[in-house]
């Protein structure tokens, strides 16, 4: 007799009745706690919406790889539940990322097509259909990707508030394209260009099961009349994960205390603090008054962490 979803997976080679029950429950829990909107075509989270996401998880793109990861890594029922939940979280994020990449592709094409410094190589020529800098060599780029990534990396990114959240502004995208095509010294297919920009802008494909901390859904600034510093602080806040917002509050504390405050080991806290400091450097590199933005950001993180009703009162170690 099969006792749980993990045993069922090993027995049947796929998700069965028990696995489906756990999967539906995981989908509903992730949607609820990570505050994802329901899938297209659903105005709220109904049982049909849960079913749709669960079925996409099982039959959609990379579902076989997902299943193999679960099978390879899970060793008992508890570990299976933990890995399945991580896979569902990453599936939600992956779906959101695909939407963001689609949006970037449209913005990229608009930037290339509307600017005379870029040109598409005409039919019959070497590199036909690829993009080049106007007047530049049309020879097909076949170099190392590092060259293009390094060129993209040198471009500072200015962020703007779009309806769907902070995003690189038009001038940044134009400059990214210009620098990448210049580094290529030849013609580049749109997919390679998109890939490099996606890497630069943090829109990589997500892992299937591996745990990574991600930002929440972006939070829109409250008022149109905010100062530029407040807008910068809002943009930075939106790019921090829940854990990073907590780490920000203990940025100057010893690693052990920081780890205890956010509930991670000392080593994980050290790595998280390093990444947070580096991330703040990047996110705030264009800020005019950095100390003021940091002060506003600290205030937002505090308000987010303690400003609303805490379901357990104020028992936090950090308070």
């Amino acid at each position, binding site marked *: 007799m099969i006792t749980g979803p993990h045993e069922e997976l090993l027995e049947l*080679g796929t998700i069965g009745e028990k696995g489906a029950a756990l999967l539906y*429950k995981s989908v509903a829990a992730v949607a609820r706690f990570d505050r994802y909107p329901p899938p297209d075509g659903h105005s709220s989270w109904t049982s049909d919406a849960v*079913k749709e996401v669960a079925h996409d998880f099982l039959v959609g793109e990379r579902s076989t790889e997902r299943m193999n990861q679960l099978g390879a890594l899970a060793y008992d029922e508890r570990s299976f539940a933990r890995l399945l939940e991580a896979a569902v979280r990453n599936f939600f994020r992956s779906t959101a990322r695909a939407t963001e990449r689609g949006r970037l592709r449209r913005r990229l094409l608009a930037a290339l097509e509307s600017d005379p410094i870029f040109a598409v190589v005409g039919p019959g020529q070497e590199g036909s259909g690829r993009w080049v800098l106007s007047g530049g060599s049309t020879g097909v780029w076949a170099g190392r990707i590092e060259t293009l990534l390094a060129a993209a990396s040198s471009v500072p990114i200015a962020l703007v508030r779009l309806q769907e959240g902070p995003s690189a502004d038009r001038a940044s995208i134009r400059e990214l394209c210009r620098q990448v095509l210049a580094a290529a010294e030849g013609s580049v297919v749109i997919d390679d260009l998109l890939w490099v920009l996606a890497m630069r802008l943090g829109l990589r494909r997500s*892992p299937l*099961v*591996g745990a990574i901390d991600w930002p929440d859904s972006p939070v829109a600034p409250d008022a149109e009349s905010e100062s530029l510093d407040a807008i910068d602080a809002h943009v930075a806040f939106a790019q921090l994960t829940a854990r990073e917002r907590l780490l920000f509050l203990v940025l100057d504390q010893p690693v052990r205390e920081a780890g205890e405050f956010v509930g991670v080991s000392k080593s994980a806290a050290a790595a998280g603090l390093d990444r947070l400091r580096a991330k703040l450097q990047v996110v705030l590199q264009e800020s005019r008054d950095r100390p003021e933005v940091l002060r506003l950001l600290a205030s937002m993180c505090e308000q987010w*962490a303690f400003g609303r009703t805490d379901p357990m009162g104020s028992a936090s170690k950090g308070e």
Partner: protein
Amino acid sequence: MPNISFYSHPLLTELADYVDGLLEDASRRDVEDHLSACLECRIAIRDALPLIKIGTPLAPEHAAVLDSRLTEALGSDTPEPDAGQLWRLRWGDTTALAVLIKVGADDFTVAPASLDEWMADDYTVVVAPSWSPIGTGIAVWVGLESIVPPYVLDVCLGEVDVLDQIAAVRQAYRKGISVEEVIVVGPPIIEVVDERREYRDGLALEFASLSEAEWLDLPASPAQETLAAESLVNLLRPVDPRGLAEALGLDAPSTFALLGGERLLAPEEASIIGRMVGIDPAVVLAATPPVPPGLLRELNHPDHRRAIEARAAQTGHTDSEERRLALRELLPVAARRAGDEAAPLDWRRLVRDRFGR
């Protein structure tokens, strides 16, 4: 049942059940204990959406299936560990994949592996699905090479034919140069906000924890206290090796094995040594024989892992406690047979018998 430690947060499904009042008392208390210390989880509960109904779960007809080679590997007997094999490693709550690079007597050099090959960095070999033993692309993180004890090996998932590539990438990594183009690796991590940085950090932490896995140094037990007593090696330190060999009638290898703590002592040999060093033979006999490396290696061998876990599940002990108990029981057996040169001990058989295999 949750049974959550501070550093392992509850699952979201458990938090949902907690919020909805569906947990049993013990599990509810575990979640509450965690919440009292964890601000992140309290915020998650505070900001969660209302209850989402899930209806009647149904597995679709065409749901993805496990690769048949993976299913087969998961049910197979444990092979002798060898370089080039892909293994699942496991210790405590940590589970990870790795390719064995070098198999030593007491530890293994491994390259962490992951099945999200698009997360690879520039010192990570990308194995295409067609070359993978489980039908899924593999990233072999050569830059995160680690040394792990044998007992963290859990299940062998097959062979990955990338040892030559790993050697070339290792060399490039050590020299800090780019990997030659014929080898498929990932793009470098340049951006600070590149999530692969966090992913790689996570893998490094997992392997640091696997490298430190230890069952002999876990909380004190009678066996461990005995093992910590003065060893025969210390007692034999002032003894001239040649004289010892003559007195005991041993050849050179056996003598040095005895001096190095790799050979047990028979009672009559203890008497002779007692006379040689001017110590009561009873003291020599009382000196704990060092754990024979052969026995330790055998208890560490992944071949016994499933039997040890099965026994632990029956007795309620942890796997580490079961290993220590076995060691305590097998040491006297080993000591009684120490002088029997004609029939050397078959440690594997002994350990298998101990676990009823």
